[in-house]
Every structure is written in C-alpha cells, then in structure tokens.
C-alpha cells in the first residue's frame, strides 16, 4: 500500500476517516490458508520424534545419509511378505533393530544396506509401533501440516501480519488534528478581523505566522522535548546491537540447515536445554552430516572445505590428516576436493586460490565465530531455563532463524524487552516444581486469577538476572 496522500495533505476530513476505516479493516484481515484435513496431534507427535531421532540422517523428501522417509511405508508394504511377516511388520523391526533384519537375510533390507554404502543405522529399541507410525505419518505428510503451526514472532505490540503499525496511525492523527487546529485558527482570526472591521476598529498589523512569538516558543519547546527524548533513547540504546549481522569465518547458512532441511535447532545447539549457554557446535557435530554431505547447495565446496580443514579431515580419502602431514600435501588434497566444484574446462583459478587460502588458514584450529548475542557481564541469562523449563521457542527471541541466510540479532536484548516478556508470558503450572505456589493454584481454581505470569512468580525481581 502506498501512502501518496501523505505528501498531499489536502484531503478532506472525510477521505482521511474513510482511509482509517480501511486500515482498521486491513489490520483484522488474516490470511487464512486452506488446510487439508490431517490428524494434527499425530502429525505433531511424529514431527517431534522425527526431529529428535531421525533428522540427523534422514529427510522426509530427500536422500541424505539415509533414504528419504516419505512413502517409505508404501515401499516396504509393496515389498510384501517374507518369512510370514508383512512388509509393515518388517519396517517396525527394521527401525528398532535393523541388524537383526539384515541378518535374517531380508532382501529389500539388504539392498538398502548396499545402496547406502553399508552405513549402519542406529538402533531405536525404545520406539513403539505407534511411535513409528507417527514418524512415518509425519514423513508422508510433512508438507501438509507444517504451515498450520507457524511461530509467532513478537516484534512489538501489533501482530506481525499487520502492515500498518499503530505508530504511523497516531502520527497521521496528530498531523490531521494539527491541520484542523491550524484551519480553525485561521478561520477564528479571519472572523475576528471581520468583526473588528465591521465595528470599525483599527486592525492590528497582520503578523506572519513565522514571526508569531507564541508559535516560535511552541516550536522551540517541541524541539527541546524531541531532542531530549531522542538523546535519552539513544543513550539507553548504547551498547545494544539489534540487527547486528557480522560476517562469520564460515558462511554457515541457517536458511538451508534449519529452514530447508529442518534440522532441529538443538541438534547443533545442544546446550540450550541443559546449560546457560546454547553452545556453538563443535566441528565434530558438523561432521556427523558433512562426512557424507560433501557439497553444499549454495556455496558448493567452498565453505565445507573450511570444516574439513579445521578438523584436519581429508575428504578425498575419508581419513584424518596425519599430524605430521606437510602443508603441500594438505593443500593438494584440499585443492583436489575443491576442484570438484568446477567443470574441468572452467576452473576459476583466482577464486580457487582464494578459497584454498581461506580454508587452509583454518587448518587444525578451532573456528573463531563472531558472537552475535552479547549481554553485559552483570546479566545472567540461562538458556535451559527458557528452552527447557519455560518451553520458549528459539524463534521467540532469535527471530525466524530458519529464514536467515546470515544470522542477525533479532531482538534488542534490552532490559525492557526482557521484562515485557516476563510480564506477559504465562507460566506452565503443570510442571510439578510449581506446586510450591499453593496460593496461585487456589486462586486459579477460585477464579481470582486467570493466569500466572512469570512476573507473578518473581520473574521481574532484580536478582533473577543480576547476581
């Protein structure tokens, strides 16, 4: 929507009010999407299991370390009966204990094993038939339920879908009223002059409005207030780094990993549920997948080469470089690997040299990531408290990471922002720990309270974060 009328404030009051009406309507407009009917509970449960158990090796729609799981049920069922057990039964057994299936000589299973380079699948004896059903239900319908459970991202008072922030509306109102006041003032003055003229009194000389002392005072006052307000605001924002998006040593792309391949955040940031830190993953975590995935979709081998270099891995032989490997050997191997990015006829030597140099510089060293989310030393923040105990989605604070090519700090990380969330967020009193708040349980039951927020249990007290 364009606001061309802003440049031309000549519209009548009527046209402004009709615009406002339109905008209010548009605020309430929600883009509803048609949904196929799926069993949402089963889908959610399946997704959770898929993410925690399968996702490191499987994708629903693409081959990864293991086959794509979409329609795996159909493939097994189509394979039919062996040794008196149906394809589905074999699939259950395969998931729980694939080695016994392989030993039984099941042909389809053994073919799979050969096809995927004899890489052994982990055992999942803890999964029940229902669990496995759920996982495959999700895998088969992974693209159907996903949009229904989008994540709301708080970015202010208005919902994200709103295209018309409250602030703009207020400004328009102020300008409009100002205009009305100005017009009324002119009308009043004109009437006064007319009255004076009709009474035959001498008219005071007309003062142009830019020489009107009252107006000048008003403008100066407004300017002072405005400057003071912005100074205070900027002073408070000192040291905050909202939208900070530094260049990282490896151009890791969250959009590809978390978005496209839907790798669970905590697969890599495993500390988030246990520790105060969410942990940037160590290289060995990257290697879980990238031992097999040797070429990326955006940067090809350029960035993955840095991983191999950092952990001293030779992607050509699948072994680690010897400790006494010479620089030349290492460079030669890395070059051979990087060459695969190019058609043999079109090697961009300059680019190749730069890539090699960048990768080799990181050889056998920990990766120095640039930390994006920084809190002052006197603030204690604990990921486990929020992710594990509070069940807060990562996106609530970090934004839609799964859509970011380069991660930027989404939230201001200001104290006001923290406190605001603590004031609004409801505590899940279902956690047995919260039984200690007997009074709240009583008040909820009797209807005295309709919800218990983090603030109610002391979440805005100083020493929850400062000690």
């Amino acid at each position, binding site marked *: 929507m364009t606001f061309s009328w802003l440049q031309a404030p000549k519209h009548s009051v009527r046209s402004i009010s009709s615009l406002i009406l339109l905008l209010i309507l548009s605020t309430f407009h929600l883009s509803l999407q048609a949904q196929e009917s799926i069993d949402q509970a089963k889908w959610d449960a399946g997704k959770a299991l898929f993410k925690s158990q399968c996702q490191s090796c499987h994708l629903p729609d693409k081959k990864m370390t293991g086959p794509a799981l979409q329609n795996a049920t159909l493939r097994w069922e189509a394979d039919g009966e062996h040794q008196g057990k149906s394809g589905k039964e074999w699939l259950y057994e395969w998931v729980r204990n694939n080695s016994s299936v392989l030993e039984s000589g099941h042909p389809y299973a053994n073919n799979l094993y050969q096809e995927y380079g004899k890489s052994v699948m982990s055992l999942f004896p803890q999964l029940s038939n229902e669990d496995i059903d759920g996982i495959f239900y999700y895998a088969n319908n992974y693209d159907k339920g996903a949009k229904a459970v989008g994540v709301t991202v708080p970015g202010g008072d208005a919902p994200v879908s709103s295209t018309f922030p409250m602030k703009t509306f207020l400004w328009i109102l102020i300008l409009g009223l100002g205009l009305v006041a100005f017009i009324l003032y002119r009308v009043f003055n004109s009437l006064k002059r007319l009255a004076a003229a009709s009474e035959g009194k001498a008219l005071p000389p007309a003062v142009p409005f830019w020489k009107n002392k009252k107006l000048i005072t008003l403008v100066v006052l407004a300017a002072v207030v405005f400057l003071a307000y912005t100074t205070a605001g900027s*002073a408070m924002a*000192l*040291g905050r*780094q909202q939208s900070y998006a*530094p260049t990282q040593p490896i151009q890791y792309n969250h959009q590809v990993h978390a978005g496209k391949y839907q790798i669970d955040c905590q697969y890599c940031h*495993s*500390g988030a*549920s*246990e*520790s*105060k*830190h969410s*942990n*940037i*993953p*160590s*290289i*060995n*975590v990257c290697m879980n997948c990238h031992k097999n995935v040797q070429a990326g979709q955006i940067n090809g081998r350029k960035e993955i080469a840095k991983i191999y270099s*950092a*952990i001293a891995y030779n992607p050509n032989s699948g072994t680690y470089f010897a400790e006494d490997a010479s620089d030349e050997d290492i460079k030669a191997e890395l070059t051979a690997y990087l060459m695969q990015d190019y058609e043999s006829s079109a090697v961009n030597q300059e680019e190749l040299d730069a890539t090699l140099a960048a990768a080799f510089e990181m050889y*056998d*060293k*920990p*990766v*120095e*990531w*640039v*930390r994006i989310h*920084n809190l*002052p*030393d*006197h603030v*204690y923040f*604990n*990921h*486990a*408290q929020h992710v*594990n*105990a509070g069940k807060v989605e990562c996106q609530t604070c970090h934004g839609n990471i799964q859509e970011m090519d380069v991660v930027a700090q989404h939230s201001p990380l200001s104290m006001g922002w923290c406190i605001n969330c603590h004031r609004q967020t409801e505590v899940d009193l279902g*956690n*047995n*720990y919260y*039984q*200690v*708040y*007997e*009074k*709240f349980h009583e008040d909820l039951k009797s209807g005295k309270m309709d919800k218990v927020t983090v603030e109610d*249990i*002391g979440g805005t*007290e*100083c*020493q*929850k974060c*400062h*000690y």
Partner: protein
Amino acid sequence: MANKKQYWLTLEAKKGEVNENPKEFGSDLPVLNSLSETISTQKSGRRDFLKMLGFGVTAAAVAAACEMPVRKSIPYVIKPEEITPGVPNYYASAYTKGGYYNSILVKTREGRPIMVEGNPDSSVTSGGVNPKSIGALLSLYDEAARIKAPMKNGAAISWTDLDAEISTSLAALAASGKTIAILSSTILSPSTKKVIEKFASVYPTTKHVQFDAISYSGALDANEESFGKRAFPEYHFDKAELIVSVAADFLGTWLSPTEFAADYAQGRKLSADKKSMSRHIQIESIPTLAGASADLRIPVKASEEDLAVIKLYNILAKKAGLSSLSDNASFDASKIEAVAEELWAAKGKSLVVSGSNNKATQLVVNAINELLGNYGSALSWERATYYRQGDDKELGALLADMNASKVGAVLVLDANPVYTLGSAFETALSKVEWSLDFSERRTETSEFVTYVCPTNHFLESWDDAQAKDGVYATIQPTISPLFATRQAQESLLLWAGDNTSYYDFIRANWKESLLGAQNKFSGFEALWTNAVHDGELTFDLTSSASFVASDLNAAASAIAKASNASELEIKLYEKVQIGDGTLSDNPWMQELSDPLTRITWDDYFVASPKWMEEKGLMHNSKNREYQVVSLNVGDQVYTLPIVALAGVPYGVLGMAYGYGRRNTTHEEYSRGENAYKVVDRASSSVVYAASGLAVQGGHKIGIVQQEYGLEHFGLGGEKTRKIVKETTLTAWMEDAASENDINFGHEWMPRKDWIEKYSNSLYGDETNDNPATKEYGGAHAGVLANGHHWGMGIDLNSCIGCGACVVACNVENNVPIVGRNEVRRAHDMNWLRIDKYHTGDEENPQVIFQPMMCQHCDNAPCENVCPVAATNHSTEGLNQMTYNRCIGTRYCANNCPYKVRRFNWFDYQGADSFSSNKGFALDNDFDGNQTEYGDKEAGLGLHSPMAKMVLNPDVTVRSRGVIEKCSFCVQRIQLGKLEAKKANRALNEKDITTACQSACPTNAITFGDTNNKETSVSKVWADPRAFGVIEEIHTLPSVRYLTKVRNQKDGDLA
C-alpha cells in the same frame, strides 16, 4: 532474669571504654585529589557547571561513538563428551599436603577448577573442608610464584639435558657409595612410596627421610613403643562422653582437624531426640580453637602443659591402685584433680589427647587412656592413621651424614627444609655435591638448591593417598598442567629407567596391592573406576594393637627436664589459616582472620592482658597502634607487634609458625619472623625462654570486626540486647528455651512470649492466624508465604570458628582480596565473617563464635534508605543487591544493624578498564610510607590474568564504588530451582546448598525453604533454642541461630 552475662569483643569494651576511632566509613570517598581540591577551594558558578555539563556530554558522546568490541565465541574442535559449556563438572580428589588429609570434590567449569568442596561420601572427612584445601586452589593459578620450567643454578635447562645430567650423576653417586637422600614431608601416597622404592632399587644408596615441619615425631615414637606401630590410632571424638585435651588443638590444627571437628560436633549436637552431649575440658596455655569450644578451659603456663599430664596420671593411678610418678610439687593442680575425678567417673567413655611432641608425655597419655580403658571405644587401633610420619631421629642422622660429607645428593620432595629446618640445614646442604627440589613454586629451598624440577600442582596430578588402614583415596587431575612441569614421581621413575607414566604406575600398584586385599570388587577396572569416581575406597578390615607398658618414671623425669619453665615463656603454635607456612604466600589464607584475635596479614606475639598492662605494652585504644617489641629467644632476636589476647596465661607469649618467609615471590605477604629458627628438634619441646624485652615502636594491625562489631553499632550493645545466647546443659534440660529471652521495653521476657505479645500485634496483622506467617506478621507476610522463603539456620553449638565457610564464600562469590592496608582501614570485603565474643574472666574467658552474614531481613533497614532502589526484597525473602544499579551512597551499610554490607573502595579485582581505579595515593600505610593501593597488595590476588581463571563465571565481578553482600548464594538457589523444573519435580532440599553450608565440617549451617515445614531449616527455626540476632528491632531476619549450650558443671566457673 537479671544478671545477664556480659559479652565483649575488645578489652576496651569490657572496661566500658568506647572505642572512638574505628569507624566503618571513617574516610571520605577517595576521589581524585586534584579534582577534590578544585571543588573545595574554588567557587564554582553557573558557568563552571555548564562547562562541566558540556564536557560530560561531549565525553559521553565520544565514548559512545567507539565501536562495540567484536566478541568471539570459540567452540571446541572436538568437544569432550563429559563437558557441556556452562555446566560444572565435579571430580573427586584429595588434599594431602603435609599429611592434612581432606577428601574433596573439585568443581570445574570448561576445564578449569573454580571451587573445592568437601566430598560427602568420604568416610574420613565426611563432606567437610579445611580452609587450606580451598586455599590451595589459588596457588594453582599463582602465575608469579609457580616455577614454569626446570632450572639449574637459577638458569633454565631443558628436561632432556637435565635428565641426562641427573641420571649420570646419580649412577656415579650410587657407584661411589655416597648416599642419595630423598627428603620429604609426610607422604600419604602408597604409590609414591613405591616409586621411591623402585628408585632405591636402581640407586641402592638411596635413603628416604620424612620429616614434618611441625614435628609429631615424639608422639609417633611413643605410639611405636606403646603399640608397636609408628602411627596414630583412630580418634572417635563422637564416641567420647568426656574429652580432655592437653594443648591439642584437634579442632584447628592437630593431626586431622576436619575429621575430628565433624566427629566432635556429632557428639555435641542437641535436639529433642538427642538430649546428651559430650563434655570437653581443655588444658592449655595459648588459646586455640579447641579451647574456644571447650566447656571448661584450664589455662596453665606453657611449661606446665606436660606436667599437667603427669598430674592427671598420678591422680588416676592412685585411684587405680598403681604407683605414682615423681611430680613437680610447685605446680598447683587443684583444677587438674577435678578433671581426674571426672575422667575416673567416665572410665571407658572418655578420651585424653595431648598436643605435645614429647615422647615421654605421649607415653604417659597412652598409659592414661589404657588405664581408663579408652582403647576400643573413643580410641581404636582397628585402623591405624598415618597423618604424620616424620622421624626426627632419621632427620638428625641425615643431617649428620650431610655434615660428614657422606651424602652425594639431596632430593627435596614436597617440603621446604631451608625454611623449616633453618641454618643448620643450609650449612649441611652446602656440603652435599648437589641438591634438587621438586617444588611446584618458588620457596626458600628452590632458591637454594642446584636443580629445580618443578612438579605439578596436585590439581594437575594423578596420585593416591592412604590416610588410614583400609582407606584409599585417588587424586585426579582437574586441569592440564599449566606450565612445563613434570610430576615428581614421573621424574623419579624416569631416572630409575622406567618410562611408564605415573598414572599407569599407580594403577599397576593398586592392581597388585589392593585388588587382592578386598572383596567388594571382582575386577580391577570396577575397583579403579569406583575409586576415581567416589574419591575414596574403604575396605573392611579388623586389626588391633596391644598395649605395652613403658617405664613411666623415666618418662616423668624426662618431662620435668624438658619443661623449660622460665619467667617469660614463649610457646610456638600453629594458626588455623597459616598452618606450617606452606600456604603463607596465599592471599586467601592471609586475609582469613585469626578466629581469636581477628587479625589478618600480620605476625605478632600474643600475651596476657594483665601482663601487658603491667609492662605497659597495651595497645593504644584510641588509634589502635600496637607496640612492637623485640625479644631474645635462644640465639634469635624476634621483633614483632604484641597483641593482648584474653586467655593467655600470665608470663607466656605465643608466637605462630609459618611467617617470616624469605626469597619467595610474595615475600611481602608473609612478613614477620620465622619461628622455626629456634626450634630444637632434639628436645621435643616447643616452649622456650624469652628475655631482653624491649619496645621498638608502634605498628598498626589489620584487624576485622572491631570496626563494625555489633556491640559498637548494634543499637545498645550487650547490656540491653543479647547478640549471642548461651545456656548450660542442665538449664537446657529443664527448659529447652532457656536463656532464649528478649529485652523489650526494658523488660526481659522469653522469646516465645515476646512473639505472642508484641511481634504480631505491634507490627503486623492481628487477624493473621496463618501459622506460617504468624511469628512474623510483617506487612508482606502473605506474599512471602506463597512459594519459597529462603532461610538459614546456624547451630552455635556446632560452630567451631574454623573459617572454612569464609574461604568457601570468598571463592564461590568472587569476593576480592584487599590486602593488609585495606583491612587496616576497615575495608575488608568478606561477605561472611565469624564474629567472636568473649565472656567472663579476662584471664580465662569463654569464647563464642557467631557466623555473621546478611540476615536477609524481611523488614530490612537497608532497603528503605537506598535512593535508587538498588537493594530491595524479593518475593522469596531474599534481600537483593543489584550492583549495576548501585551508585555507592553507602546509606544501606550505615543503616544495617548487622554491619554486613561491604563497599568496594577500589577496583580490587582489576576488572576495570581504567587502571587508575585500582587505587590512589591516599593514606600512609601506617608504617610511615605513602603507598598506593594496588598491584603489590591486592594484585596478588586476582589481578593476574591467570588468577582470574579461578573466578566463578556465574557471579558478577563487582566494580569499584558499589556495595556488595551475602546473596544466600542466589546463583545456587536459581540453579537448584532450575534442576527441579527440568526434571518436572518439586524442589528437593539437597538441590540447594550454600557455599558456606557445603564447606562446614560440623554441619552447623542449614539452608532451605522455610515455607516448607519438612525441611531441616524449618526444623531449626522451630527449635525452642532458635533466635534472630537483635530481632527485637523488628528486622525480621531470615537467619536463625540456635542458642549455644555448654556442658558446664557448677564448679567450672569457680
């Protein structure tokens, strides 16, 4: 209820003099001198104000325009499985220096040790910590003092060259028949001994001599004669109904104080279910921790301590129908007679210990215990203990050999003989071809020897320890070696031609010697894994030793001869915090105040107040300047300040070991005189005649508590309010709330009545009938009753004043070290202090200790005076201190009746980007020199980048200009709650322990949720003995103390 006991902190207070000078905030804020001059001398007008304002705004704008620093986050390349960054790991280990055995848990964060806690699974020290075990943590990171690489004659040498040189030389010495001596302190490690055996098998002229800095050789000799074992029996202080200790400070320093303190407190805890406690009589000259806790303390002159043992024996022998020994008639022993009577009555249920190192005395003590039938109950030979193993006879023989040039090389292991053995050793050592020290840090010895082969700190080492028969401990590394050091055992193995690592050697040794000796584990891996995990393995075994009578008459005359009575006696004693001096270059230990004198950082004589008055040596009570005196002791002249300590007998001076270190990196920490210089190891006595007393001048001492003792500022003092409460066992049996009364409106009434009558109606809501909040009907009782309310309980009966909690608190909460000058200015920073009060006779007072920290008052006087609300109350009853909001007005500290709020006068931690904040030239250092606060004093502590590795990453490092105080370890509270939430369960009492609580060897401190009536802290709060300090002013403190109960008899005070 008239006739209240008078408690006093200083001698002036006892006399009713008001101590005028010491004020907590005696000086103004130290702003830049030039600036303050400008402000005070020149008239500043509106223009100046505007100039300043303009400058300030511009400066802020310029500063703000600077770019934010880029912070890196560097993960592991391959993350070790057991490490999750941000989550601490605990490793079981043991502190064994000098034979002090303490089973510990080392808390590490991201691979660096940051805290030492007691190992609750230990059968020996059962979860308690010795202050020294925690202090040793800082020595690990002492970059300046640690030796970083091998040296020869002060110059660097590579390990390879050194190994080649030494192996050749050792072979040559062995071939020529010259002795290779390994001189060590007590070694508890069986594997180390095995290594030495192995070394000796390659170099057959090797001789291993152990000696203890403070000798226990005489006592060991006596036990060898009486029981055929050169060891100590197991002492069970919990099983004795009557404990008589003659100058043995078994709670502070003697043998295994952490273990004994736990047992002792076990025998003295009282509850509705346990209505009996042991009785403890201490006969001693210099007041000790054990003496402070005793029900009856009998002061005797230092020369009479051993004679008292003979007296005891004679009276008991008479009763038992045995012949008595010759005895010194001049010694008045009427009180000893009463003790003997009690002992006789408690036959078989008593325990007599002596701290003497005179073999003859210990023989008589053994005879007394045998006569009383104490072996088998409070004393047992079922498991012999090996806390001290030094042998002075062997040491003497070695020195003689060295002097006769029969010794080719001396290898010093875990000892500092140049300091502790004095010039005799230096002379002897100069006659040895070459010498070698395995010291991990610079010491007098490492500066003197030919080679230094730095060993690892024990937190970087694999090792084992055997404290007792059948109790084996493992020591495991908690950090990779910080420097190019090599463990001594590995060096010895290497020179003996064995290339195995010491770790493999220990395992092999355990497999060989322990696997078969037990039946708990069938395989070695199970045994080893369990040992490393638990830190300690205890095997069942039964053994005993039978008593062999000795010639006691000879012993008696030996005692009489050694008693060294003289007009002015000087007794050498060991301080709880400094010990034998190993850790005297450790600032944590130096700043831990002496429990009785409350003095930090200084070496001094202690003397009787009466004697001091007579000699005109008393300190100036106005400016607290102490007299410095010089004394001739043997061939030494000692010059030290002299301090009056109530309880020291007339004509006796006490002098501590461990000071007067020379040639160490931190020499300035360990000022004073080296008491070892006069020790005559041949005579087994530590009492010497002093003469030639002369005053040398004045000296100001760093002493804590006086500036803010509750009696000065505590609203009325002892005459109107009881700060500590104590009663006797007899009175307690009649009335469990005995002496727990309150003076309100000039009327004494039981605390219970006071609560009933006033607390609820006067301050609170009369209609409140909620039992949880009725006791304190404060305005916010309703809020506090919902959810948690944190509270602490402290049993004054169990607190022995050892100071482990204070050090633990300092380490856990990043409490800075301030140095001597700052303590002198009352700027000490301890969040937790152990207040000491004296009561009774000046010459023989009783002592009462009271741990004092922020009381987290529910009606806190500090909270409502803060202009910026930097301190306020949480719904969980915590008095919160928000450093980032504090502007340093110190109103809160002034308004705190407990004086527990500490102000950061300087940037003590070196955390500030502006280095000038470390300090300004302010004041003279009381020795007449202008000094700056800064690197020399406090820099010791935490200014070096490596030392900062000890900081707890969960606690803010406070900057200059803010108030700080005890937070009830809020970081641990939050963590405990989080663990419960993560596990989806209710909070368990064990989820949260404060640092002081976990360190306490006697379990005097309980902590938890007082809203939950099942927690142990709620039980302490409900005890009739419970009281809050000066609660009559309606502060509603969240710390309750339990009245101290002494097992006194009527005649005791006569």
